[in-house]
């Protein structure tokens, strides 16, 4: 018997013109792992929310059809009452944390679903151990790195021992090893798992079945092997690619030089004696495990941080693209947001928006954009300045493969005008875009190349 059944589901968000989901039907069997793929804004997150009962209960909107999970009709059952049967890991880990300490955070869901008090401590420890975060139990959530926080959130949902596990881009902030572990953990939990992912290489190896959504409709629902063939024929950008990283090499005539730099946040030393050179015309990928100082190095290169030892020498203007596109929502029109970096020059701002595929979005409020569109707006906001050094920190987070290819092409086309440093956990993208690859964990460099 199916664990979950979706019948002819159509859903339109309040005040939206087009449906987010359009006549979607599917069944989920206990224990199966389903990869949910599709371009940004195609309805993946909405489908996960419908399975959790959050659509329509939390969001309102027009809902037609039927969703049944574990024998409960989601229109008649509150999402809170589905918790425990269903567990959801949302896209942005920072927006789902309730408590200040890790152990209390993991215990929160267990307390809500009425787990026996004497068992809560053991299940918290079990969940944290499963994701390799037992050592974080007494840490403050605010002190964790993005990757560590994502592990803690995963522990929170695994501790519930749900029948249906919904994961919305669970690996967006994890390094490749961490991402592989996360998917394997979800599979090992024994629940039916639906994983929405923008990095097909991270999920297609571990799934049983693939769903592909476009404009709110399911265009593919097939076992993995059959799906791989379909993707190769119809959506080649989504076929998993092997990461082929370029060699470390060295810069010819560097325009930016970081010489034996060191940096510490309080007592926590994150960089020690690291050197890096960047030359105009080249794109360098900076890779390395979570917490190895990649972002710190990026901020040092762009002048946002001062090293505690060593020196940074760069010529010309440097621009830095933050990991968080939510930081590019200062103005009320997209074109004004982009024009900030060029003294309000709207003509250049519009050109930059066109460059990232956001023509026609000039008058839109940045907060009305989807997460993928926000990523592109943020990119336009730094590209518009035509910097001599462009530093991009995880620019492919939440970006679908087709857009990644476009981004790589855009960076290549403009590469001759500047030095470009791309900080990324996305090794496939690093291989596609970079001329050189540098690791913050030198002992792993040989293995990467």
């Amino acid at each position, binding site marked *: 018997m199916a664990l979950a059944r979706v019948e002819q589901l159509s859903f339109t968000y309040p005040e939206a013109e087009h449906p987010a989901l359009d006549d979607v039907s599917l069944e989920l069997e206990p224990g199966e792992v389903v990869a949910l793929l599709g371009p940004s804004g195609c309805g993946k997150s909405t489908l996960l929310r419908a399975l*959790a009962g*959050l659509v329509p*209960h*939390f969001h309102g909107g027009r809902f037609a059809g039927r969703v049944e999970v574990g024998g409960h009709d989601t229109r008649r059952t*509150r*999402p*809170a*009452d589905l*918790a425990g049967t*269903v*567990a*959801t890991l*949302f896209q*942005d880990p*920072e*927006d*789902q*944390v*309730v*408590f*200040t*300490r890790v152990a*209390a955070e993991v215990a*929160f*869901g*267990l*307390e*809500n*679903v*009425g*787990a*026996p*008090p*004497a068992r*809560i*401590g053991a299940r918290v420890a079990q969940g944290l151990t499963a994701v390799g975060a037992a050592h974080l139990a007494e840490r403050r959530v*605010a002190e964790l790195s993005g990757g560590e926080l994502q592990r803690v959130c995963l522990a*929170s949902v695994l501790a*519930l021992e749900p029948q249906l596990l919904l994961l919305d881009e669970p690996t967006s902030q994890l390094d490749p090893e961490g991402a592989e572990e996360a998917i394997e953990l979800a599979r090992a939990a024994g629940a039916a798992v639906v994983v929405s992912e923008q990095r097909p290489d991270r999920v297609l190896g571990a799934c049983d079945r693939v769903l592909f959504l476009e404009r709110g409709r399911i265009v593919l629902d097939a076992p993995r092997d059959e799906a791989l063939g379909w993707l190769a024929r119809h959506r080649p950008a989504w076929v998993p690619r092997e990461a082929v990283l370029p060699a470390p090499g060295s810069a010819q005539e560097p325009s930016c030089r970081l010489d034996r730099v060191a940096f510490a946040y309080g007592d926590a030393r994150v960089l020690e004696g690291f050197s890096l050179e960047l030359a105009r015309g080249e794109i360098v990928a900076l890779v390395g495990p979570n917490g190895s100082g990649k972002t710190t190095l990026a901020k040092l290169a*762009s002048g*946002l941080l001062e090293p505690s030892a060593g020196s940074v020498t760069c010529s010309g*203007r440097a*621009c*830095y*693209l*933050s990991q*968080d596109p*939510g*930081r*590019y*929502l*200062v103005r009320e029109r997209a074109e004004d947001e982009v024009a*900030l*970096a060029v003294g309000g020059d709207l003509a250049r701002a519009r050109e930059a928006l066109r460059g990232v595929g956001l023509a026609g979005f000039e008058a839109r409020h940045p*907060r009305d954009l989807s997460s993928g569109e926000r990523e592109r707006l943020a990119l336009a*906001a*730094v590209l518009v*300045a035509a*910097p001599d050094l462009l*530093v991009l920190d995880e620019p492919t987070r939440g970006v679908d493969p087709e857009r990644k290819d476009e981004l790589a092409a855009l960076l290549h086309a403009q590469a001759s005008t500047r030095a470009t440093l791309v900080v990324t956990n996305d090794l496939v993208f690093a291989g596609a875009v970079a001329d050189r690859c540098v690791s913050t964990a030198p002992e792993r460099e040989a293995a990467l190349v």
Partner: protein
Amino acid sequence: MSPAPAAALLAGLVAAALLADRTISVAAIAALLLLVCLRAPAPRRRLYLIGALFSGLGVFVISPFLATIGSDVLWTGPTLPVLGTIDVTREELHVALFQGLRLTAVTLAFAAYALLLDHDRLVQAAGFARRSVLTIALATRLVPTLERDAAGLVEALRGRGVEVTGVRGRARLVSPLLAGSLERALNLAEAMEARGYGRPGATRSPKPSWGGRERLALVLGALAVVVGALWL
């Protein structure tokens, strides 16, 4: 120490500051709370201490111009419509100092609560009104969260070569910060609902037991209220 008795002790000190009649007593309570706040790490306590100082100072500076008490006039200013003649008396200054210190003591007590108490354990220890305690704990996080968001916005602007300077430059960040907070609040509410918040039959992790220090803190909190009402 368990956070519930510590919160009760802070509440007792606040009550004492509000009930006390003498300026010196309120000043002593404010000084004691300041010493407590200084135990927090310097970068975290800075914003709270500035807030406490400015709120107290604000009351001290503004209220003499609005109050009309006393006869020992120290300064006479212009006559304004509605307000009449602006003057400052010795009695007004004394009351302003007293009220300013009171407000400083209250804000310092909040700062000590926000900076030093383990809010997670406070929520877990709440025997009743757990929802209210959780709401207060989440609201307490607003200050550091806004501070972090503001730092993120400023960093992203600097990353684009835009420097944020002056009061006007910072004031422009208020609107995006508030909008971001609302968006975050909605996302958090959704995540809490998905994790079963508000469902009947909730349990809670076993509470840590109280020792001598916890009991002493409760007694001192109650004592502070009585002493504040009768002798300070």
